[in-house]
C-alpha cells in the first residue's frame, strides 16, 4: 500500500513538472518555423494516436470490438453531418450500448 502511495505521488509530481516545462521553455524556441509547425502538428498526431489506440486497443494487443467500432463509425457519421460535440459523443456511446444490449460484441 505504501508502494502505491509513492507511485501516486511520484507520478503526480512528474506529470505536473512535464506540464509546467512546456510553459517555461524559452519563447524563442518557437521562432523557428519548423519548431512552430512541429508544435502545431503534435496535438494532431497524438490525439489521432489516442483515438486509434483506444479504438483498437485491448490491453497491450490490438482487438476488434464490433460494438466499439460501430460506435466510432456512428461518431464519424455524426461529424460528417456537423453534429455538435455532445451529440457526437452520445451517438457513439449510445450506438455501442444498444449493440451490446442486443448481444453484439
Amino acid at each position: 500500500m505504501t508502494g502505491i502511495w509513492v507511485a501516486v505521488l511520484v507520478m503526480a509530481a512528474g506529470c505536473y513538472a512535464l506540464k509546467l516545462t512546456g510553459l517555461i521553455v524559452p519563447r524563442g524556441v518557437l521562432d523557428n518555423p519548423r519548431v512552430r509547425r512541429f508544435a502545431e502538428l503534435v496535438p494532431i498526431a497524438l490525439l489521432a494516436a489516442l483515438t486509434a489506440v483506444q479504438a483498437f486497443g485491448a490491453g497491450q494487443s490490438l482487438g476488434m470490438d464490433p460494438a466499439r467500432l460501430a460506435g466510432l463509425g456512428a461518431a464519424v457519421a455524426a461529424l460528417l453531418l456537423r453534429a455538435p460535440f455532445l451529440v457526437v459523443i452520445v451517438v457513439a456511446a449510445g450506438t455501442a450500448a444498444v449493440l451490446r444490449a442486443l448481444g453484439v460484441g
Partner: protein
Amino acid sequence: MTDTDDRTAERARARPVRDGLVLGLAVGTSGVAFGAAAVGSGMNVAQACVLSLLAFTGASQFALAGAVASGGLAGGVAGAILLGSRNTLYGLRLADLLPPRGARKLVAAHGVIDETTAISLAQPDPAAARLGFWATFATIYVTWNLTTLLGAFGAGRLGSPQSLGIDVVGPAAFLALIWPRLRAGRAERAVGLAGAVIALAATSFLPPGVPVILAATAALAGALISPRPAGPRPAGPRPAGPGPGGAEDPRLPDSGEAGVP
C-alpha cells in the same frame, strides 16, 4: 457600436465557454470509469482521488491503474509519466496564451491537457482561446474529481462501463476534437493518419502509453517536410480562416468554421 456588434462580441465570448462546459462535462464524467478502474486495480479510494486531484491527466492515470493491477509498479510509473509528456508539447503551443508568470501560471500549468489544448486552439483569437482554456479546465477539473470519487465508491455497483458504451467516449471525443484540424489541410490529415498507424503498429511490442508518444514522430516528419513560413503571430491559435501562413499554402482549403464542439 451597433447591436449587431454587441451580439457578435457576446457570441464570441459565449462560444468558447459553452464549448468548454460541454466538453468538460462530457469528458470529465469519465472520471467514473477511472475511479472504478483504480479501485478495481487495488488502489484505495483516497489514492484514486489524490491521483485525479494532483496528476489530473487521464491517460496517465489509467496507465498507472493498469500498472498497479499488473504489478511492475516502477515501470508503470515511468510509462505513465512518459505518457504525460505530450502535455509538455501542448504547453509549448499554449505558452503565449496563458498567464506569463506568477501563481496563475502555476495553476494554469496544471490544466494543460488534451482537452484544454484542443478547445483553446480551435478558437478564432487569443481572448477566446484563453476563455476556452479556463472554462474547459475548471469544468473538467471539478467533474473529473467528483466523478472519480463517485466511481471509486460505486465501483461495481453502477452498470459496467462497457454496457453503457463508456469505452467509446474517449476515442469519439478525441476524434471530434481533431476533426476540424484534419479538415484544415492535407499535411494535417497525413500527420493524423501516420500518428494513428505508428501508435497501432507499436502497441503490441511497447509498454502501454509509449506508442502514443512515439506518434509524435509523425508530427516531426510533417514539420520537416512541410514547414510553413514564419507568420506574424508565433504559436497563436489557428485563426478562423486559413491557418497561419495559409495564404502561402495553396493546398489549404478555407477551413471555415473552426468549430470544435
